């Protein structure tokens, strides 16, 4: 898993974890990580799975990369 922007400082840039068997989709993963890192529960934090920004929960089985994206600030 990768974390960007302010989440780098709050959580770390990258994290490899063993996920419990009952965590099967991206929103369950967010909720599980959110116990330790509540900032991930903010509705403004988007998730991407294998380079696609998600609008609905997706199964995490077989995912190569899950990214957490806080509100952006380019330009």
């Amino acid at each position, binding site marked *: 898993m990768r974390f960007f*922007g*302010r989440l780098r400082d709050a959580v770390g840039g990258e994290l490899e974890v063993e996920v419990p068997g009952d965590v099967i989709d991206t929103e369950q993963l967010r909720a599980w990580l959110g116990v330790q890192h509540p900032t991930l529960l903010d509705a403004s934090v988007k998730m*991407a799975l294998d380079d696609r920004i998600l609008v609905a929960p997706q199964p995490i089985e077989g995912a190569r990369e899950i*990214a957490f994206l806080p*509100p*952006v*600030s*380019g330009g």
Partner: protein
Amino acid sequence: MIVLAPDPIDPPALLAAFTRAAGGAGAIVSFSGIVRADDGVTDLWLDHHERLTLAAMEEVSAVAARRFGLVDLSIVHRVGSVAPGEPIVFVAAAATHRRAAFDAVHFVMDRLKTAVPLWKCERRGQDRKWVEARPQDHADAARWESP
């Protein structure tokens, strides 16, 4: 040309190359964003995702090209450390007429601030402060939603 640049960029050189390539356009508009030396900022650090960020910039470019009927469009955005006084972003649009070129640059800048995965961190010595788009940035971007 859609580029994420880890090294300093040279807007006059980018504009010269863009102008040469955009043969036949009647109007070229460019914008260069420069890092301000606000309140002791020593540098900005730009975070990005190597694939998502470029894909989002390409999407913004495709939407702008369609919407404004552009001849050509260039977006070059720095990533990594950018010092005050250095360019952070360059956008140029070429169109048949001036209004489309002005509007396209405006549109692209509004989208860069609100819809492209880029994150600014203001660094003041050892202090770090992550920046998020301001309400005004979202209001600016929302103007393009209405017909």
